[in-house]
């Protein structure tokens, strides 16, 4: 590459990094605003907004609901998605390629369309309990993330290792537990984190299944922002961001972000 092209590439990369990170820094700074109008804490910081998060209308039930749905749907998807990925990777399944595409396809579908389709579908069969419909709906949101990560993770796994362990005297469940599970741990972690975050952050599907008493945290947050935005929301957003940073930091220590970039294609 010519020198000029290299300079352009670096300017773009650094500009892009700043552009992506600035909104996150601003929201963290605004959460310490000394006044109720999102001032940057240049003249003195205040932590009072953090104390007010818990007093937001309906905050605790919504947080609890979002955590329950995200955790449960992730666990169920990890089990179902991994089993399916094993069957696909072992190549004994007729039509495995088509099924692998079908498993990942909800990722490319507009969330809002999935939301109204599920609303119609659940109504048609008389399944209207909000908590249960949210959980079932979030399985479709989380399963593609798990399937995608586990299929590419298993493509690199050598199944003869299980046979080798059995030849050496391991039982079948024992060899799966002691050979396959450790080898796939990084994929599990990546799949779990992305699936949890996809569910925890989902708005377009949940909005059609929630009711007045059963609202997930993103639905509440959008409502707060539209009604009366104040730095309390910036404080809440900062806490959610901090949680995300910790998740990413832990996964970087365990697997490395570079590997996550490789699996995301």
């Amino acid at each position, binding site marked *: 590459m010519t020198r000029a092209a290299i300079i352009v590439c670096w300017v773009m990369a650094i500009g892009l990094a700043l552009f992506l990170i600035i909104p996150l820094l601003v929201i963290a700074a605004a959460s310490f605003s000394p006044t109720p109008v999102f001032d940057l804490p240049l003249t003195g910081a205040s932590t009072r907004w953090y104390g007010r998060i818990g007093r937001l209308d309906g905050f605790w039930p919504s947080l609890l609901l979002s955590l329950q749905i995200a955790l449960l749907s992730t666990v169920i998807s990890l089990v179902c998605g991994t089993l*399916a990925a094993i069957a696909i990777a072992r190549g*004994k399944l007729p039509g495995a390629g088509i099924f692998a595409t079908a498993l990942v396809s909800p990722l490319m579908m507009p969330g809002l369309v999935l939301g*109204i389709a599920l609303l119609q579908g659940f109504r048609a069969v008389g399944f209207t309990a909000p908590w249960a419909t949210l959980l079932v709906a979030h399985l479709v949101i989380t399963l593609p993330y798990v399937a995608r990560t586990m299929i590419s993770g298993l493509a690199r796994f050598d199944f003869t290792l299980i046979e080798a362990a059995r030849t050496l005297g391991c039982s079948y469940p024992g060899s799966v537990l002691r050979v396959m599970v450790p080898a796939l741990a990084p994929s599990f972690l990546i799949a779990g984190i992305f699936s949890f975050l996809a569910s925890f*952050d989902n708005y377009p599907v949940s909005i*059609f299944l929630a009711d007045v008493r059963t609202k997930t945290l*993103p639905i509440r947050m959008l409502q707060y922002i539209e009604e009366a935005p104040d730095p309390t929301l910036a404080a809440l957003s900062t806490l959610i961001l901090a949680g995300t940073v910790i998740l990413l930091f832990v996964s970087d220590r365990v697997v490395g972000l*570079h590997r996550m970039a490789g699996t995301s294609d």
Partner: protein
Amino acid sequence: MTEAALSAPVAAPAVDRERLTAVGFVLPSFVIIAGVFALPLMLLLGVSFVDANGLTIANYKRLLGTPYYLWVIWNSLRLGLLTTIIAFLISYPAAFALARARGPLRSVLLATLFLPLAASVIVKAFAWTILLRSDGIVNETLMALGIIEDPIRMIFTETALIVGAVNIFLPFMILPIYAIVAQLDSRYAEAAATLGASPVVTFFRVILPLTLPGIIAGVALVFSLSVSAYVVPTLLIGEKYPTLATTIAKAYLLAREPGFGAAAGVVLLAIAIAVVALSARLSREPK
């Protein structure tokens, strides 16, 4: 199955059992995808052809036959196109720098991609409403620098919408491109240069075709995400830029017109499927 049975009759039961196990393994996922994804989408297609008087194409006539709704569809496409083009123009050169970065610099750059990717869309859109307010940080900074005298109106404009959408969907563009660029063998470009190709020719004849799979993946992903975005237009521009997504939400949550909302959903779905099909076709085509 028949082939295996003919060539090795003794092995047939074992093959059958392996197949049965494989089918058992995919069954839970199959039930989820078929029951909670494929069937509801088919039902939605059915609902879009129904109104209070029974079977009808009135919903599609209203959507595709009135200037207002054609404008709404154009708004969605315009949001998708502008976001995709701008995100591509930033991401493509940046991916080359990212691929050359090593050590701590690479970790920092990758972290600036992954953190926003993992961060909540609502949090990011909210951050842009703070940044772009008339008493917000962008205006204050521009005034402090003496670039403008009075605050300019940014929030609830198309500029705010596009800036926010590009910001939120950028990681989906650069990551697939980076994954390809990082594997690019620099010897191809060197070979082209040795054979007398100018840098411009090398770029268009060697580098661009080799990185095309990443570009197709990124463009398809960003377009299908931004064309159907809901949170971003709702918070950054609001009522005056209605899109297919906001029309769907309105039809279901306010107007109680499921048939019309379903028709709008089917149109949005058709756009998404067209993009996926086109990108799959393009990336399969021989060079």
